[in-house]
C-alpha cells in the first residue's frame, strides 16, 4: 500500500492545480511572497544585530500582519468554506481597511 513520497506530492500538486480556483491561487502566491520576505528579515536580524529595533519590528510586523490578513481573506472567499456567510466583496473591503490601518501603524513606527 505504501506509495512513493514523490508521487504523493505530485498527486497533491495536481489536485491543487485542478480543483483550486484561480482567486485562491493568486492569494496563495501573495502568501508565499509575504512568508519569504518575513523569513529573510528574520535571517537579516541575526546577521547584523537588532540595532534599529523599532525598524525591524515594523518591517517584520508588516509582513506578519499582511500574512494574517491575507489568510483571513482566503478563508472567507474559499468556496469550500460553508460555515462563514460573508460575501467576497465584504471580505475584500474588510481586508482593505485592515491593511490601511496596519500600514499606517507600520510607517509610523518604522522611524
Amino acid at each position, binding site marked *: 500500500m505504501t506509495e512513493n513520497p514523490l508521487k504523493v506530492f505530485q498527486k497533491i500538486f495536481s489536485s491543487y492545480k485542478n480543483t483550486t*480556483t*484561480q*482567486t485562491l491561487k*493568486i*492569494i496563495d502566491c*501573495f502568501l508565499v*511572497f*509575504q512568508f519569504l*520576505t*518575513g523569513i*529573510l*528579515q528574520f535571517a*537579516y536580524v541575526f546577521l*547584523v544585530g537588532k*540595532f*534599529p529595533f523599532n*525598524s*525591524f519590528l*515594523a*518591517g*517584520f510586523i*508588516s*509582513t506578519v500582519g*499582511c500574512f494574517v490578513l*491575507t489568510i483571513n481573506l482566503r478563508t472567507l*472567499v474559499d*468556496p469550500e468554506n460553508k460555515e462563514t*456567510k460573508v*460575501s*467576497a*466583496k465584504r471580505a*475584500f473591503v474588510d481586508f*482593505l481597511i485592515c*491593511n490601511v490601518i496596519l*500600514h499606517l501603524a*507600520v*510607517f509610523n513606527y*518604522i*522611524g
Partner: protein
Amino acid sequence: MKPILFWIFVLTLSTVSSSKPLFGPKTAVLLGNIDDKHKYSQFFDSFTSKGYDLNFLRASNQDATLKKFGEYLYDQAILFVGKSEEINVVDILDFIDSGRSVIVATSSGLSDSVRELAIGCSIEFDEQGMSVVDHFNFKSGDKEHTSIITNNFCDIPSVIGDFEQDKKGVLFKGIGMKVQKNSPLNYRILNAPSTSYSSFVDEKITKKPFLIGNEITLVAALQTRGDARVLFSGSIDMFSNDFFDSKYGNSLFCQEIASWAFNERGFLRLRDYTHHKANSMVKQDYYRIKDDIEFSVTIEEYDIVKGWVPYVANDVQIEYVMLSPYIRKTLFNYPKTGKFSTRFTLPDKHGTFKFRLHYHKRGYRFIEKVEEIPLKPFWHNEYERFIPVAYPYYLSAILMLVGFFLFSIIFLYNEDKNNTRKDK
C-alpha cells in the same frame, strides 16, 4: 596737585606690598590678665607683622564684648585664659557661628566656661587640675615631668604648613583633651607621645588614668561648616616667649597652626563655575541624554601675601547625581590658572539630575556646590532616521504596500471561470 598724587601712589604701593588678612585685620585678644601680654609678645608680634590689628582685652571684663549693636567688632579672636577666669561662652560660640575664627589656649587650671566652650566645639578637656605627664619625653630640669616634648603631629600639610619639613618636637605643658578620632570636622593636630598619661601631679595614681598615650590630644581644631576655624590648645605656655626661645620647634609650630586657624592657608573659593555642551559654549538649564558635556571650574586658595593663587590638586571630583552618582569624574587640573575641567557623556537615563562638587579635604575649607540640571529624553524628531542598516526593513514594508496594491488590482479584475461562490 602733586603731593596728592604722590600720596595716592604711596597708598597703592603700601596696599599692594603689605599682607592682608582675608576677613579683615581686627583681632580681639582676650587675656586672663592684661599684663600677661608681654609673656607672649613674640607670638603676638608675628600677627602684628602680618598686618593684624590686635586689641588686648581682659577676658572676664564685662566690657570685653565682641559684638556691639548687632555687629561684630572683630574679625577673629585669640583667647588666652589660663587660670579659672570666666568667659562669656554664648558670645564666643555666636562669634564662631558667624564664621569667625578663634584661637583658644588654656592650662591645667581651666575654668568651667572654657570647658563649656570646648564641648560646644566637640572637644573634651580632662578634669580641672590634671596635667599631661610623661616620664620619658620631658624637658631636662623639669622635676614634675609635665613639660613634655612631643613629635606626634597630624599629617595634614595644610594645617602644619612649613613645620612639616622641620620636625624638631614641640614643648607642651598643660592639660590634655579628648577628640573623637573619626570626627569629620575635628582635627587632632598635636597628640601626646605614647608613653604619656593624664593625671594630677601631686596625687598617687591608684587607677588607670582616663586618658593615656596617643589618645591624649594636646592641640585640636574644629573647622565648622560656616568657614570658621577654632583652635584649642591645652597649654597656654607653648605660646610663651620662654618656650619660643627654647631649642624646640614651638615658635614655628605655633605660628603655622595660628596662620592656618586665621585662614591664611587652606581657604579655597570657587570661581568661573561652568558647564556646556562640547560643541557649544552656552550654559544650559537642562541637557539631553547622551549629550557630551564639558565641565570646568576654577579653584583658588587664599595666600596672605599674594592674594588669591591657583589651587593645585589632583583629587577634585565632579558628580552627576540622581539619588546616587551616575557619573563621578576626577577633574584635570591646569596648575597655572587653577582651572579644573573634564569632559564626559551624560547617562542614557532621563530624570532630575544634579551636578555636585563636594570637596572635603582635611585642612581645607569645604567646597560644596550643587546645581540641579535635569536630563530630558530625545524629542520625537531627535531620533536618528534613515539608518543604512535598517534599509531592508524599509524595503520590506514598502514591498508589502506595493504587493498589497498589485494584489488588490489582480484580485478585483480576476474572475473565476467555474465554481464561483455565489454572492448573497
